[in-house]
Every structure is written in C-alpha cells, then in structure tokens.
C-alpha cells in the first residue's frame, strides 16, 4: 500500500515537472512578436549596444569623492557622520587631476584658489619659500627626476624633511622606486597624502627628458661577456 503511494506521488511529481518544462519551452507569444516583428538589422544593432554596456569585468563603479556616509570608512549609523562636509562640496572650483583626491592641490595654491594658513592662528603669516630645483639623474631609461623645492616649501617647513628623511647633502640620499612605494623617502608623503604613485603620475617627478646622446648603462654581465 505504502509503495503504491510512493509510486503515485513520484508520478505526480514527474507530471508537474514535465508540465513546467513544457511551459518553459513554450514560445511566450508577446515577447516573440516584439522581438521578431522588428527588422533583423534593428535587432542586431540593439543586441550590440546592450553587449557594449555590459559590465564585463564586474568592476564596481567607484565614486572617487564619495560623501562620508557612503565612503565605506565612516559609519553611516553614527549621527556625526551625516554632519561632516562631503568632499565634492568643498572641491567646487578647484583644479582637477586624474589621481588621489582628483584635485591638483599645488596648482590650487598657486592659482590662489586655496588660502591655507601657514601659522595656526595667524592668517597673514607667509611661508619661507625656497626656489631651488634639484635634478636627480636616473639610471634607467625613464626621464630624470626634477625635485622642486618651491612647491614643497609652500606647504612644508625645512625641518619636516631635513635631516631625518633627506640628508641635505649631494649624493647622500639613495632613492629608488621600491623604497618610495613602500613608504620611505619621497614615499613618506607621496603615495599616502600628497599625489599618489600611479602610472598616471610618473611624469610629475620624472619630468626632465634624457639628453639626446643618452645611452642606457651596460650591465656588468654584458661588460664581462667575452663574446661581446
């Protein structure tokens, strides 16, 4: 008796499933007509455009200057978060770049769009600006580095960098990109607060083209190669 019941119920289940399968394979009249009544060319064009707007890498759209409640660091459940100024509101009228805060802070200061204080309580104090460019030849084939003191002394005091980070003596500072990327030398600020190190910002520092007769230095292995 029980076996029969199971057989009946399994039959019923199979029936329901087959009905579902038939229903799902049935052409849905409305969709069908709307798709195939159009001309073939139109349909192809529509398909291509939808393919092109598809987010193939499933990359999330990033808002570079998100308001505090949406930025992922501030807690939206904290009432104070909603009192904080959204960055976009403060950035109106400032020159833009393609990296970091997407604001060119140095240009903003030069243009007078910003007037940050040099002294905590004295709005009239002026910085001690030193206009001295340091050229640092680079071994690799990328352009040589020009370090401008002017832009740095507009923001910083000498004691911020000298002598702890940079020894103020020619040839005393060995700098390489690995150290900078890991947060030493220029990387104490660049890559954290001042403009970041991305492929878009290389030329901000590597700005002096190599001399026309420049050739890359030959490696030790090449120089010692007896078959050269």
């Amino acid at each position, binding site marked *: 008796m029980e076996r029969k019941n199971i057989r009946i119920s399994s039959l019923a289940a199979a029936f329901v499933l087959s009905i579902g399968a038939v229903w*799902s*394979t049935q*052409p849905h009249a409305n969709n069908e007509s709307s798709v195939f009544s159009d001309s073939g060319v139109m349909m192809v064009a529509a398909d291509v455009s939808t393919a092109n707007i598809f987010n193939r890498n*499933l990359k*999330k759209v*990033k*808002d*570079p*200057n*998100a308001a*505090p409640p*949406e*930025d*992922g*660091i*501030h*807690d939206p459940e*904290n*009432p*104070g*978060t909603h*009192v*904080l*100024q959204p*960055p976009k509101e*403060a950035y109106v009228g400032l020159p833009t770049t393609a*990296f*970091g*805060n997407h*604001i060119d*802070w140095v240009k903003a200061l030069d243009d007078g769009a*910003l007037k*940050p*204080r*040099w*002294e*905590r*309580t004295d709005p009239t104090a002026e*910085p001690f600006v030193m206009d001295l460019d340091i050229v640092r030849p680079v071994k690799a084939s990328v352009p040589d580095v020009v370090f401008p003191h002017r832009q740095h002394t*507009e*923001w*910083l*005091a000498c*004691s*911020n960098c000298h002598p702890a980070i940079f020894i103020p003596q020619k040839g005393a500072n060995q700098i390489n990109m690995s150290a900078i*990327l*890991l*947060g030493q030398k220029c*990387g*104490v*600020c660049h*890559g*954290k*607060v001042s403009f*970041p*190190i991305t492929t878009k910002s290389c030329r901000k520092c590597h700005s002096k083209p190599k001399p026309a007769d420049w050739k890359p230095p030959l490696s030790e292995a090449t120089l010692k190669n007896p078959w050269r």
Partner: protein
Amino acid sequence: MISHAGRRLTGRVAVFGVVVWLVAFAMPQPAQAEYADVVINNYADAAGMRPAVFPHWFHRIRFRCKVCHADLGFKFKAGGNKINMAKIIEGKFCGACHNGEVAWSVENCDMCHSGVPGTPTHFHGSTVQRLVAPPYKALDATKRVKQ
C-alpha cells in the same frame, strides 16, 4: 529561428547572469573614502568608541602641512602619535585647534569618532595598501576586546 534547446540555454545563461550580478552586489563594497583619509584606532575600539577618522583633504584646505607636522609635532605615520583624549584636552595634537577657539571643541565626540567599528589604523588609498597588504577586513570588535 532559435531552437527550443537554444532558448532554454539562453534562459539558463540569463538566470546565471542575474545570480552573478546579485552576488557581486551582495559582496562587501570596497571603501571609497577620500585619498589620504586616516583611520586612527590605537585605543578607540578597546575603549568602546568608534575609531577616529582624520580627513587630510579638509584640513589642507585650511592649513598647510607645516602647521601640524612641524609646529604641533604630528609624525608622518598613521597612528604613530599615540594620541588619546587626555592629550587632546591638554591642548596637544588635535586639541591645539579643537578647543572651541580655532575649531569646534571635543564634546562633539562623533564628528571624529565616526569610523566603522573594527577598522584598523591605516591610510586610506595608500600605495603600500594597494601593493602588498590584503584588503582590510573589519575585525570583530567584541572579539578584540576580549583578547
């Protein structure tokens, strides 16, 4: 004309696509805070407060780097100053300005202590973070307190 099997396959692909799309949005969203925002969580979580978030962008519009990093003695290191509320009330570090005279005073706790609980001390968007460190996961604040 598309065959029945073909249409069924299309249907399956569509369902799969929808599932992937939903999963992608259900995953934790990456932080999109401003470049150079600093989360400071030396002591906050352990004291039952949200971590403090310091926005560099907001402050550099008003002050040059030198004011804090030379005059007030802030080190160039996230969490490297061991700031606590006692020091701030004494007028050191943040307290040099956040005293009700230059800027709003410390009773507005949740203006600074506004971070997602459990976020470790870090520089948002730093090169080091992008290069070698795994993406930051919010630690379970309750577990950390128990340890």
